[in-house]
């Protein structure tokens, strides 16, 4: 009995003798060793997770900025305006629900209420609640519902093309002071409202094809001034420093000693329906988690291999016909019909010579004569088939090759018939 040494890669010698209780060696690492080996990666992964968490908490700039939010320092926020107003003694209250906004207007005579709804969460009814809430109501980039409720004569806002407008075009003091503004945001088509003859100020109207005005000032249905700032960029950190944006914003918003800055949030959503989670039984979520856990366990169950894969060096597989196939494709691609046919003819001639026992030294004429003699076909035709004809296309080549094969078979049959020698082999 024998055991062979199994040093990988090296030549393997055969050791004969009694069954060998050789030193066995456990390949699988122990749990402790596996843990130690993986320690670096575990630590690295933990560090990465910690870093990501810290980074995500500290820098919110990567997240979507809250537009018009009073404490948002990103370009889309409005913190700059709020801070300036606070510094100049305006009592600023920032709220994010409709109820709080209405409650914050404690002095209805000297309060400016700024309302923005960047996520379009407020309903027409809620916009209606704002009507008359403050003597000066400023809507920043008002959604269609807001315009429709509070200023039905004005068309809904459409996205602005941007750019700078330097024609106030109205008598509003703030607009006059600003002189020129950027118009990023929406523009409002107020031509209908202006034609009704009501007290409507259409500021920064824009030219033909520009869609409408950047600022429309009119009366609230319930009394009080209503400013619709279509160009929301005017109050945002990113653009407030440009042109006369700051003058316009401060002029409109800082009119009264108290300012209520209201940005609608998801808390304003009227939940007529119950919570989604109340629609299904309480065990659905845990069951989903359980299903996930079962899947995970099944993956571990099926995925754990019974030992590593055994590798084996297999010899290369070389096919002998590769050169033949390659040459055939070359013939076919180049259309070497004559060359191909000549190869076939040489093979046929060789087999004919063997079949007729002419010997390998037999000349072409001898073979043709012998074939003519045994088959009775005329020599000229045989010569044309075996030597002279040149195929003009592939069809002719195939026909000639078939003729050659037929001739071989015919000669073979005649030879077998004409004498009682065993049929010649081609070997």
């Amino acid at each position: 009995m024998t055991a062979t040494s199994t040093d990988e890669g090296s030549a393997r010698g055969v050791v004969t003798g009694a069954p060998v209780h050789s030193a066995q060696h456990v390949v699988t690492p122990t749990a402790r060793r596996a843990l130690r080996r993986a320690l670096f990666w575990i630590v690295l992964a933990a560090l990465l997770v910690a870093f990501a968490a810290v980074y995500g908490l500290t820098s919110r700039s990567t997240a979507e900025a809250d537009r018009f939010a009073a404490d948002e320092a990103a370009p889309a926020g409005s913190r700059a305006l709020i801070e300036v107003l606070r510094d100049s003694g305006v009592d600023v209250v920032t709220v994010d629900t409709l109820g709080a906004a209405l409650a914050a207007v404690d002095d209805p005579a000297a309060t400016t209420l700024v309302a923005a709804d960047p996520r379009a969460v407020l309903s027409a009814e809620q916009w209606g609640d704002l009507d008359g809430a403050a003597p000066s109501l400023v809507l920043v980039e008002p959604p269609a519902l807001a315009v429709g409720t509070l200023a039905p004569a004005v068309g809904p806002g459409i996205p602005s093309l941007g750019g700078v407008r330097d024609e106030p075009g109205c008598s509003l003091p703030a607009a006059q002071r600003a002189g020129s503004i950027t118009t990023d945001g929406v523009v409002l088509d107020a031509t209908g409202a202006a034609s009704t003859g009501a007290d409507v100020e259409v500021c920064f109207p824009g030219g033909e094809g520009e869609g409408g005005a950047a600022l429309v000032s009119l009366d609230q249905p319930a009394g009080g001034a209503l400013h619709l700032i279509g160009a929301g960029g005017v109050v945002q950190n990113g653009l407030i420093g440009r042109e006369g944006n700051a003058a316009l914003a401060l002029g409109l918003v800082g009119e009264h000693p108290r300012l209520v800055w209201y940005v609608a949030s998801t808390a304003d959503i009227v939940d007529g329906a119950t919570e989604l989670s109340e629609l299904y039984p309480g065990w659905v979520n845990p069951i989903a988690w359980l299903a996930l856990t079962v899947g995970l366990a099944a993956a571990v169950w099926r995925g754990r291999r019974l030992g590593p894969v055994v590798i084996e060096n297999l010899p290369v597989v070389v096919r002998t016909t590769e050169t033949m196939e390659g040459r055939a494709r070359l013939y076919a691609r180049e259309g070497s019909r004559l060359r191909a046919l000549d190869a076939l003819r040489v093979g046929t001639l060789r087999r004919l010579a063997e079949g007729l026992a002419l010997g390998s030294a037999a000349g072409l004429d001898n073979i043709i004569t012998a074939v003519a003699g045994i088959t009775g076909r005329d020599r000229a035709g045989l010569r044309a088939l075996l030597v002279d004809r040149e195929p003009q296309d592939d069809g002719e080549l195939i026909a000639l090759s078939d003729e050659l094969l037929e001739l071989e078979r015919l000669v073979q049959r005649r030879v077998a018939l004409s004498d009682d020698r065993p049929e010649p082999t081609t070997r």
Partner: protein
Amino acid sequence: MAVTGWFVALVALGAVPVVLLANGWAYVGWVGLCLVLMAVDAALAASPRATSLARSGPDRVRLTEQAEVTLLVTNGSRRRLRGVIRDAWEPSAGATPRRQRIDVPAGERRAVRSVLRPWRRGERRAAMVTIRAIGPMRLAGRQASIRVPGGIRVLPEFSARRHLPSRLARLRELDGRTSLMVRGQGTEFDSLREYVRGDDVRSIDWRATARRAGGPGPAGSPAPTLMVRTWRPERDRHVVVIVDSGRTAAARIADETRIDTAFESTLLLSALADRAGDRVDVAVFDRRVRGRVQGARGADLLAKLVDTMAPIDPELLETDWTAVPSLVRSMTSQRALVVIATPLDSPGSTRGLLAMLPQLTHKHLVLVAAVTDPALLSAAADRSDRASVYRAAAAERAMLDAQRVAAAVKRLGADVVTAAPLDLPPAVADRYLAYKAAGRL
């Protein structure tokens, strides 16, 4: 660590408490319970590391035959070892079954048997043994792979040995044991024996007959016993076989590499020549001698040959033919039959062989045994469409090349045997017998 299907089922069973309690805590609690049970079960399983393993079994097996190997598993832990064991052999060793259940009480030993049906020649190794011990609750287990050296040498099949009896019979016919043999070239005097009816009268040795009869006897004494001479082929000739293991031998014809065909031919020829009383030396060569058997006779010869050939695979190297004459010189100093088993494909790939041949042929009788590809013949006969006509042309061309090479080899004074893989070994043996009969050895 490993978990079983029962563990997965146990986790899935958690659906009952989760639905009944309709609470996220039921889920957390159940999963926690499962994890605890799993850990306990794994801890209670016997340690696979504590087993000691030993292999036993044959160290050689002929290709296409099967061998049973035994793995003795001794449970060295104090717990019962229950689980699955896998004796991981190389895939081409053809070990079945791949995995088996084992149940070894503490401190006891069990045998795990598996059957090898190798499908490739050479040295087949057992890489390792993997044991997965399952805990008493059958939820989880511990697993370890243990390297236990082991291997088996898969010898060439020698399927050509079925041709041996008929060739041996032909040899006996040559051998003077039957009276067909007459005096001729390549025979040597064997013995004198009494004439029996049917013997060729030309072989009567009158001088021996007279000597046997002694002096003139008395009249009326019975006729003197006639003596005949018997002849037998020359013995103690030398046969040297050189098997080419270079890159061209790696080519696969009809599901057999050329080197395997060469080995089959070598084995048949060696068995025959050994019985005929000739000495056989074999070398496998590409750029260095990969294997060599010299001076072995009788049953020892075949055993040594298959053992030498078993691990040899073709190298992807060009064979160094210039070194072959000196190799032959080192193996024999007298005139010998040198059989070279190498493909004769194209003039390009056989240039080295052709350049070397005259050095051998001027002293030895050289026979080149080459495998032809039956696929070429069938490709040359198929003319069904455009592509196959071009293939037939290329096949004719390849056959023409092979013939040119064979003719060149013959012009250099060597002999050529070409045949399809299965026909080559008997063809070589027949050629040897023909030499023997003609006294050309």
